[in-house]
C-alpha cells in the first residue's frame, strides 16, 4: 500500500484483511470437528432381497412392501409396487420395518443405478423461497413426482409385478394393511 506524505517511508505493508476490532477476553476454544459418520447398518438376517416387509410408521404405515436392497447409507430400498399399494420406490430405516416370512425371488430384478448410488435422488425438491415480488402471486405447488422417478418406478415394478401375480394371493396380501388386533 502506498502512503502519501513525506517522511512516511513511501510505502508500507498493510494486511489485506484486517483483524476484527472485537475479540473475546479469553480465547474461545474451537470445538472439535465431529468426524463420526454412521456406517452401513447391519442388515437383520430376516431381511433378504425379496422379503415382504411391513412398514411401521410414516405415511405408509401398515402397508406390506417388497424389499429390494440395502443402500449405502444403511437404509432399505423398498417398492410397493406402486400399482398395488401406492408405495413408490422409497427408502426406509431398518428399525421401522418388520420382516415377514413371505418371499419373492428378485434376484434378476435390475434397479436403476441412480437409486442406488445417488441418495439425493430420493430427497424432495427444496422449496423455492418466495421473493418479495412473488409474494402476492399464488404459486401452484407442484406435487407431482419427478419424471425420472415415475420412469424408474415403472422399470422396477414391471419386473416385479409378474412375479407377484405368479404367487397366489400375494397381490391381495400386498394390498392389505397390517394391523394389530385383539389378542
Amino acid at each position: 500500500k502506498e502512503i502519501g506524505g513525506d517522511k512516511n517511508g513511501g510505502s508500507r505493508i498493510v494486511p489485506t484483511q484486517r483483524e476484527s476490532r472485537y475479540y473475546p477476553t479469553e480465547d474461545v476454544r474451537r470445538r472439535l470437528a465431529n468426524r463420526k459418520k454412521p456406517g452401513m447398518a447391519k442388515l437383520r438376517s430376516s431381511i433378504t432381497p425379496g422379503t415382504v416387509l411391513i412398514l411401521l410408521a410414516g405415511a405408509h404405515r401398515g402397508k406390506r412392501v417388497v424389499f429390494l436392497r440395502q443402500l449405502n447409507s444403511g437404509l432399505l430400498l423398498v417398492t410397493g409396487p406402486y400399482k398395488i399399494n401406492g408405495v413408490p420406490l422409497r427408502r426406509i430405516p431398518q428399525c421401522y420395518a418388520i420382516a415377514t416370512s413371505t418371499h419373492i425371488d428378485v434376484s434378476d430384478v435390475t434397479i436403476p443405478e441412480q437409486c442406488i448410488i445417488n441418495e439425493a435422488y430420493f430427497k424432495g425438491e427444496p422449496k423455492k423461497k418466495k421473493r418479495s415480488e412473488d409474494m402476492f402471486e399464488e404459486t401452484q405447488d407442484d406435487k407431482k413426482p419427478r419424471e425420472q422417478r415415475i420412469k424408474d418406478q415403472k422399470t422396477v415394478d414391471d419386473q416385479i409385478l409378474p412375479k407377484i401375480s405368479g404367487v397366489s394371493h400375494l397381490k391381495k396380501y400386498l394390498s392389505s394393511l397390517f394391523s394389530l388386533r385383539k389378542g
Partner: protein
Amino acid sequence: PVKLFSKGVVTGYRRGQRNQDSYISLIKIEGVTTKADVDIYLGKRVAYVYRGQKSSKNKITKRDTKLRVIWGKIRRAHGSSGAVRASFRTNLPPKAIGATVRVMLYPSRL
C-alpha cells in the same frame, strides 16, 4: 385405519414405599403377564397421547390438532409379572397415572 401399537396403562412411577422417582414410569402392557413376554417390547417407543385445550399445529402433518404427545421408550422389565419401566423425554405428569399409553412396534427387531 391400522392399529400399529399395543395398549398399555401407566401404573405409576418407580418408587420405594415413601419416595418416588418420577423420571421412570411403570407401564403395564396389555397381554404381557410374565417377564419373558417383555423381551419383545424392550426398546420400543411409547407415546403418551393427551389432549390440550388449544389446538396447535403439528409440525409433521401440518394440521391443527388438540392432541399432544410425550414420547418415551421402554427400558427394562419391572418385576416378574410383565410390568415394564419406561422413561419419557419429559417426565409423565401425575394425571397420566391410570391413563392409556401406546406402545409402538418400532424400533423393530423382527
